[in-house]
C-alpha cells in the first residue's frame, strides 16, 4: 500500500469544481505537482494535509482514513508535515519560539528532547544562527525556511510542500533541494510548485493538474519526451507557436505549432513539455516575450 492513495477525489467551492475525480497515489520519494494558477493544486495539497475534507472520493493516508474518527485523523497528523502556500507568524515569536510552538502541538512534550528537535530542523534549513531572531524581522526567504522547519519536525512520513521555494534565492533553493533530496529517501513528499526546474531537479515523478483534473502522471523523463520534436530554435518567432520567446542569444525559443523557416529542433525542457501539456492554458503560465 502506498503512503498516499486518492481515488475519485472531488472538491467544489460553491459552483466551482476545484478537483474532479482525481486519482493519485505515491510513496517514498518526491512527487512534483505542476499546474497553472487555479488548477486545484493547493486544494489537493490541503486535502492530503488533512486541512480540508474532500466532497467525494476515497482517501487513504498511511493506511488510515482522514475522514474517520478524531483518533484516526490525529494518528495521521502525527506522521505528517505540511508547508502551506502562505503562512503567517505571531509577531512576538522568534524562529525558535515558533517552531517550538508547533513542536508542542506535534506532541514533543519533553522540553529537552523538544529543544534538540527544534534546533535540528532549524539547522537543517540553515537557520541555526538566526533561531533567536524574531520571525517578523527575517527576510521572506528566511521566513519560508522557518515554515519548512516546522513541517520537518519529527521526520514525518508524509511531507506536503506548497511552493516551498517561493522567495528563496538560487543558493537557498539549491540548499533546499539538497535537504529535500535527503529527506525524500525516508518519506513521501508531495511538492507543488510553479518552478519546473525544481521538479526537474528533485522529482522522479510529476503530476500535471489543470482544471481540477490530472493531465499527466508519470516519470519526469516521460513528460519531457512528450515534447520531443515540438521545440525549436529559430531566427523568427513561431507564427502559430503555443509560446515563443526571444532568448539571450537573440534566437527565438519556439514551443509547439509549426516550425518557422530555418528552425532547428532542440532538446525540450520539462517546462516546454509542461507548456505543451497545458495547451492553450500555457499562455497564462508563460507569457511570450
Amino acid at each position, binding site marked *: 500500500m502506498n503512503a498516499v492513495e486518492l481515488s475519485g477525489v472531488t472538491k467544489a467551492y460553491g459552483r466551482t469544481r476545484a478537483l474532479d475525480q482525481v486519482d493519485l497515489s505515491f510513496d517514498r520519494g518526491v512527487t512534483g505537482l505542476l499546474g497553472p494558477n487555479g488548477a486545484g493544486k493547493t486544494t489537493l495539497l*490541503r486535502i492530503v494535509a488533512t486541512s480540508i475534507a474532500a466532497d467525494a472520493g476515497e482517501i487513504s493516508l498511511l493506511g488510515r482514513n482522514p475522514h474517520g474518527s478524531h483518533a484516526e485523523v490525529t494518528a495521521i497528523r502525527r506522521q*505528517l508535515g505540511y508547508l502551506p502556500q502562505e*503562512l503567517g507568524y505571531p509577531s512576538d515569536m522568534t524562529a525558535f519560539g515558533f517552531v517550538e510552538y508547533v513542536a508542542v502541538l506535534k506532541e514533543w512534550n519533553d522540553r529537552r528532547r523538544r529543544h534538540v528537535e527544534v534546533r535540528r530542523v532549524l539547522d537543517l534549513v540553515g537557520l541555526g544562527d538566526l533561531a533567536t531572531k524574531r520571525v517578523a524581522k527575517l527576510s521572506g526567504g528566511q521566513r519560508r525556511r522557518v515554515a519548512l522547519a516546522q513541517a520537518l519536525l*519529527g521526520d514525518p512520513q508524509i511531507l506536503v510542500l506548497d511552493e516551498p521555494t517561493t522567495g528563496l534565492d538560487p543558493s537557498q533553493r539549491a540548499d533546499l533541494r539538497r535537504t529535500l533530496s535527503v529527506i525524500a529517501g525516508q518519506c513521501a513528499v508531495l511538492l507543488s510548485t510553479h518552478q519546473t526546474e525544481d521538479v526537474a531537479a528533485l522529482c522522479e515523478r510529476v503530476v500535471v493538474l489543470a482544471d481540477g483534473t490530472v493531465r499527466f502522471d508519470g516519470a519526469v523523463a516521460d513528460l519531457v519526451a512528450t515534447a520531443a520534436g515540438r521545440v525549436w530554435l529559430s531566427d523568427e518567432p513561431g507564427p502559430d507557436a503555443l509560446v515563443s520567446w526571444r532568448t539571450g542569444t537573440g534566437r527565438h525559443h519556439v514551443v509547439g505549432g509549426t516550425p518557422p523557416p530555418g528552425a532547428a529542433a532542440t532538446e525540450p525542457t520539462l517546462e516546454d513539455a509542461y507548456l505543451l501539456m497545458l495547451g492553450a492554458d500555457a499562455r497564462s503560465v508563460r507569457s511570450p516575450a
Partner: protein
Amino acid sequence: MTSSPVSHTRMAGLGPMAAIEARRLARHPVFLVGVVLAFVVLGLIYFLDDRAVLGDGMSIPVIPAFFIGLTSLVAMARLTRSTEAAVEAVATAPGTEARRTTALVVACLVPFAAGAAFIAVLLVMATVRGVAPQEWWFGTMPDWQVWSILVALGPVACMGGGLLGVLTGRWVRFPGAAAVILVAVVLISRVGSEPLAHGDLSELRLWVPWAMFHSGTMTDGTQVLFAGNPAFYLGYVLCLCAAAALVAIWHDRTARTAQLRTAIVAVIVVGLACLALAMTTGNEDNLTSDPIPSQISE
C-alpha cells in the same frame, strides 16, 4: 530518523503549551504596562498620601481590575488571534484548537498572580501603616467578606479580563474587537451597577462582572458597604470566568462534545444560583460606617 513524541492523551502537551502562552503574556507590552501602572498607582497612594492610616482599602482592588484586568483582555485577545495567522500549519498538527485555547486559558493564571501580588502588597501596606478603626476592613466586618471582596474584585477580575480576551479572540473577528469589548465591559460594569448601588435595591447591581462593594470615603467621612453576599458574588464571577473559558473552547467544532455542553450549562446554572444567593443573602442593606475623622473633607 529522530524519535517521535510519545504522549498521546487528548490533552497531552497542555503543560508545555500553557507555559509558552504564559511566557508570551508575561512579556506582552500591553500587559506589562498595565501591571507597572497598577503598582505605580498603589505606590503613589501609599507614599503621597500624608494621612496617618491607609484609607479606602476595600476600594483599592479597582486598580488591578482596571489596569491589569483590562490590559489582560487586550493582550490575551491579541495572543489568541496571533497564532491563527499560522492556522494552516497548526491546524494540521495533532494538537487541536481546543488544546490551544485551553493553554491560553491556563495562561490567564498570570494576571491572576499579578492581581494576587497586588492584593498581597496592599495587605502589607495596611499592616504597616494601619487602617482607621471605623474603616470597612478586617475587624469591622467578617473576614470571609473581606477576603471575598478582595479576591473577587482583584485577582479574579484580572484573570477574568484575560479570559474575556481569549473568548474575544476566538469568537469576535473584526479589527479592534478587543477595544470594543473593553469599552463595553467598563460601561456595563459602571452603568449597570452605579445607579443602583445607593438605592433600596442595591443588591441588583451584582449582575455586572465587576460590582462595587465599597463606596470609598464620602465627603462626610463615612464609607458605605453595599448590600449583598461577597462570597456568593465571588462564586458568580468565578462561574463567569469558567463560562468564558468553556465557550472559548466550544469554538473548536471537534471539541463540541456532550460533556462540554453539559459543563457549560452546569456553570451557567451554578453561576445564576450564586448570583441569586449573592443578591438575597449576606448584608441585606447598605451599611454606612462611622465618620473617619482623618478623612473628612475640609
